[in-house]
């Protein structure tokens, strides 16, 4: 009986059309270029997260992200979200910024349609805007960089403590690190982040006081200007009255 049932199951399994699609979740241009050590190579993640490791860097990317290794080995980020760990001194480019990394630096890059957000998770990195301006970005800080406007000036923000909640969410969804590694990384970052918040608060307070003083001055100037305008209007009124009724 057992033999018959086994035979029947074997027959069924051979009849049923089981199709397993061996479709890759990553597109590469040229094909399989990521296996090479150097040369032009572009990658797009179709599904899930991915990891690309080279001698100089290790990059973890999220779904729909696009990145490119240039001929000279520079990593160019085109679209999406990334965590990059420098394994040697390296440079990463994106639409609106260039990040210089030293060995061991770990950064989180999020590319928006009109700006690049860069956050330092570990190490002190230097970011160049499109005009070559240098911006220091210590650990636990983030900043955004945008395009050059018609006046030739580049738009960028001021360093702020990074969004810790968002970082945890992204690390969980993109990073290939183990849970305990992520926890250790975040624990190390937390104290720096708290210090960054304190420092930013102090800076914000100072700049708010300055802004209030500037606003007071501006209001004074506006009041003076309004008084001048009133005087001018009064003069015009008198002039018209004279013209209309007395001449």
């Amino acid at each position, binding site marked *: 009986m057992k033999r018959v049932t086994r035979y029947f199951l074997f027959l069924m399994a051979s009849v049923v059309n089981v199709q397993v699609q061996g479709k890759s979740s990553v597109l590469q*241009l040229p094909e399989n270029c990521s296996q090479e050590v150097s040369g032009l190579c572009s990658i797009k993640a179709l599904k899930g997260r991915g990891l690309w490791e080279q001698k100089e860097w290790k990059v973890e990317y999220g779904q729909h992200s696009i990145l490119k290794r240039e001929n000279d080995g520079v990593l160019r980020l085109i679209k999406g979200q990334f965590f990059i760990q420098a394994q040697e001194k390296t440079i990463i480019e994106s639409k609106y910024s260039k990040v210089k990394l030293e060995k061991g630096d770990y950064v989180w890059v999020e590319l928006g349609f009109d700006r690049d957000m860069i956050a330092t998770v570990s190490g002190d990195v230097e970011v160049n805007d499109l005009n070559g301006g240098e911006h220091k970005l210590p650990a636990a800080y983030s900043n955004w960089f945008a395009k*050059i406007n018609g006046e030739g000036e580049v738009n960028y923000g001021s360093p702020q403590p990074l969004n810790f909640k968002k970082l945890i969410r992204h690390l969980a969804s993109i990073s290939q690190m183990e849970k305990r590694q992520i926890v250790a990384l975040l624990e190390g970052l937390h104290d720096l982040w708290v210090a960054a918040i304190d420092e930013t608060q102090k800076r914000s307070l100072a700049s708010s006081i300055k802004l209030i003083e500037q606003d007071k001055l501006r209001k004074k100037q506006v009041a003076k200007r309004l008084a001048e305008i009133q005087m001018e209007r009064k003069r015009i009124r008198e002039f018209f009255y004279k013209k209309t*009724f007395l001449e």
Partner: protein
Amino acid sequence: MKGQFVFSFTLLLVGFWMSVFVKFHMYFTDPKIYLNEINHLKHEVEMSKFRQELMRDQVIEFQMEVAKLLPNYLKTKPADEANYPLRNLASLITTEPNDKFLNSKMRIAFSKAKASFREKDFKKASKELLEFIDKYPFSIDIAEAFFLLSESYFQIEDFERSLTAIEKMIELFPESELTAFAMLRMGKIFEYQDRPEEAVDIYQTVLKVFPERGVASQAKKSLRSVEL
């Protein structure tokens, strides 16, 4: 024993007929080919999207290179016809309009027109004011501009145009004190044109609408002079 044999036979028969059915089914409607074709086409679409994204990135990179170099280069070139292609290229990289620049342009245009009015060059003033109203209809000085325009027309004795400007003021700025002054001027024009009833109507309207303001006393005086 017999029952076991029947059961085994039935199972084998079912298996046999199922395999026959599947073979026939696959023979007539083999979905493999179509599935492969769909997968291939999907892959092609994804690849072309991917290539597009890479190209778009190159375009942005080039655009930023141009944006980096062009503004400084343009400063060294005169804004003549020969440099039109350069200015045209620069317009592609220009982003949001500069509000401060626009405001200062508005202020300059209005000050220029006002200066012409003060210098009693009313013809020039009317031309400049008309241009200002046309170009900057959302300026904060627009009511004053209409008022000065009506006055300029009045001064060059173009009463019809003056009346049109005042009517526009009544329509657009019914609450403004300047409109009240303009209405007094309207009454005056009606007086010149021997239309005293209409002038009286206008003065009474001013009195009714602006009873507390200084302009009311002028309206009263004008009304008295017409009624005399």
